[in-house]
């Protein structure tokens, strides 16, 4: 293991990533299956932005915490919850015209704890009146409340817009990759991105996280990262393909493998540096805001980032390699390699690429001097 890491750091890695991907992809397929099932069985826990309804957040005042601490000898954390219970808040909400309100007590370090009340306004209820009643129940000024009211039709519209934007995005990206690389790579990239989205959305269904516009932003970010990663990989494969001399000597499999090994360090490092800010967002966001927006956003991002880096290596490229294998030229190369029993064509490709681009120890060919490609 240590040796492998050391080799990796020195850039000596030459692993048959494509062959490895066949085994790994079984796991991927299973995960996708679980996520799809979860989506159908459990469904998504949609926030009020998508379903309509109202949310009020009432901070628990410091004084109330102090007063409650007098009779609650056991601890300080739940003192506020003891003085006013979630049931009190729920009944206040029901009286003001919000039947069946869901009340949560959210502990927040660094700022006042909050009661979060979610429900649907009754036909005759007025949101200002509800806010007043809730503020009275907890004993705070009504100005310190935060609230949100969303009409039911709005959610459909938001979802509709997001869907349309997604379709346009996918079409444009597919065209872009086709123009820049080739259509087989469009297919590979879109399959990889689809894989990432299914896994992330599936995780939301599995864990029952609430889907908010922030979550949608997270999904979009994930798509962006995943595509970005995939393009970096494809770009390397393409440039290697162009600089290979006679393609009959190598299989596409070997070419892809060499390229993947070349970009692997970059993928790992980029993943680490992308995950670090998100991790800090998760820890700090959770620490300061309880189950707030930032924490959920960061959770989605974390899952998505890891899955995204994984998929550009293990899903996107294998798909392309599989499609390319059917092109006559590459198929012939593969057949020749199989017939000759050559399994080391990867090493040959590595050496050919090195010889082509980096002729340093041999006398430099003047035409190539200083040229990268």
């Amino acid at each position, binding site marked *: 293991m240590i040796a492998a890491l050391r080799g990796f750091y*020195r850039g000596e890695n030459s692993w048959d990533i494509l062959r490895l991907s066949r085994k790994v992809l079984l796991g991927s397929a299973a995960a996708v299956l679980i996520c799809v099932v979860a989506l159908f069985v459990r469904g998504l826990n949609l926030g009020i*932005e998508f379903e309509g309804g109202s949310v009020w*957040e009432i*901070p628990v005042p410091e004084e109330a915490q102090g007063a409650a601490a007098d009779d609650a000898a056991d601890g300080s954390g739940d003192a506020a919850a003891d003085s006013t219970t979630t049931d009190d808040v729920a009944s206040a909400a029901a009286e003001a015209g919000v039947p069946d309100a869901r009340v949560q007590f959210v502990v*927040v370090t*660094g*700022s006042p704890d*909050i009661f979060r009340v979610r429900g649907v306004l009754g036909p005759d209820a007025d949101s*200002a009146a509800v*806010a007043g009643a809730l503020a009275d129940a907890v004993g705070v000024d009504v*100005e310190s*409340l*935060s*609230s*949100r*009211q969303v009409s039911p*039709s*709005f959610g459909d*519209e*938001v979802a509709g*817009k*997001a869907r349309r934007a997604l379709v346009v*995005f996918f079409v*444009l990206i597919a065209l*872009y990759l086709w123009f*820049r690389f080739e259509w087989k790579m469009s297919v590979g990239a879109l399959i990889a991105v689809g894989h990432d989205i299914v896994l992330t959305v599936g995780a939301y269904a599995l864990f029952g996280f609430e889907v908010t*516009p*922030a979550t*949608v*932003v997270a999904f979009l970010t994930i798509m*962006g*990262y995943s595509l*970005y990663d995939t393009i*970096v990989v494809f*770009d*390397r494969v393409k440039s290697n393909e162009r600089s290979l001399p006679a393609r009959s000597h190598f299989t596409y499999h070997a070419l892809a493998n060499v390229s993947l090994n*070349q*970009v692997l*360090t*970059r993928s790992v*490092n980029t993943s680490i*540096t*992308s995950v*670090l*800010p*998100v991790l*800090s*967002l998760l*820890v*700090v*966001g959770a620490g*300061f805001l309880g189950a*707030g*927006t*930032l924490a959920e956003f960061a959770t989605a991002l974390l899952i998505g980032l890891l899955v995204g880096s994984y998929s550009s290596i293990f899903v996107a490229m294998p798909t392309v390699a599989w499609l390319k294998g059917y092109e006559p030229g590459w198929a012939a190369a593969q057949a020749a390699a199989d017939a000759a029993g050559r399994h080391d064509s990867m090493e040959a490709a590595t050496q050919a690429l*090195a010889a082509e681009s*980096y002729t*340093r120890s041999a006398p430099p060919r003047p035409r190539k001097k*200083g040229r*990268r490609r």
Partner: protein
Amino acid sequence: MRRSQIVSLLLAILIGFGSLAGVLAAGWAPVLGVQLQGGVEVLLRPTAPADDEQLDRAIEIIRSRVDALGVAEPDITRQGEQVVVQLPGVKDKQRAVDLVGQTAELRFRPVLLTFNPFDEAEFGSALDLAGAYNGAVDPEDDTEADTETVEAEASLDFTLPEDDIADQAVVLPGRGEPVGYVLGPAELTGEAVAEAAATFNNAWVVNVDLTDEGAVGFDEMAARYFGQQVAIVLDGVVESAPVIRATEFGGTAVISGTFDEDGARDLAVALRFGALPVEFEQDDVRTVSATLGEGTLRAGVIAGVVGLILVGLYMLVYYRLLGIVAVASLAISGSVLWSLISWLGESRGLALTLAGTTGIIVSIGVQVDSNIVYYERIKEEVRRGRAVRSAADASFKGAFMTIVWADLASLIGAGVLYQLTSGTVRGFALYLGLATLIDLAVSYFFMRPLVVFIARRLVNEEPRRLGVLRPADGDVAPAATTTGGTS
């Protein structure tokens, strides 16, 4: 190192930190959105399809209402058919929510007195008249009416929107003319109007068709105020105050005066639709308390700083000298982005939203990746035996093309989202796009020359200083013959 690269490096540093210094010196700071400093955010959607003209007029009216609230940075924008009203830092939130998007009544009020609002004595007696009128009509509310009059007298102000009550006398200004009106209780509302149109008949006039019920009420009013002025009042402004010239209108009225075409059309629109030319539904109303906003802001800032420190440390440990370039690139990008956000806030009133902040934190990763792509290429070439200084030059072209192609995909995504979505997602797309553009510029004009400089002056052909271990040190020929790259 070429002269042009030195110039580019110096210029990048100058522009990066110079813009930051300029912004700080000018006292500009990013305008914080509702979620970051507390306030009110309302999303309005027309209940019936509305055309551009109606929406633009509606926005104008909402803006003038909001100005009355004294919000420092109101942001009212149209996104397709929707109107987004953001009032960060607004004090009286419930009043703000009520005021925005309410379809105030169009009212017909008899004119009791016209006066010159610039004459303090006249203004004072006008307020007295209205106060006396309300006192007589509504004796129960005596004390309150009195105090209000006293306050109003002290400040010599027109009736405030919330005191503009249908069955009370009010003191209101005329639209676009220096005339004040003292008006009696409303006789009719806009519901009496079925249709109104501006027509040209020697001069511009407004033809008004009344509803059946409205026609009866209108004739009653005409009988009572024959020969006097009746004001058409909208949103606390007298749109027009024609003199009643008949007692029997039979369901249609013609308002003539010294209208130009625009004036006639505006009046017709006002008569047709009431205060807002479109009726709005409040689709999404969000109020955020100042404490919650501050908490979110603090969490975002701390998360960003901690994340930056971690990333910087990782880059320094892994890439050694090149890590310094990565940290410096982040610093330059950060200061340019800060300047840009401050400038957008100052000149466009564009607020930095929570989603925007997360977009920026995320873009740290994109910026660092540009560094990593380049450094990995350099390391690869050095491992193959190339001299460090030559590798730094030669690797850039390929690396930069990779960065461009990948960033282009991000830009396509940001563009599509910005065009086709609204609210949270749109804010995110904007800042992601900006950060990506900055990344491209910084990579080309700052990262490259600095890396080349370091490779030439500081590495001294010891790849270890870049965190490069050659496969087996010693079996590679020294790169004595290398000359500079071509890219």
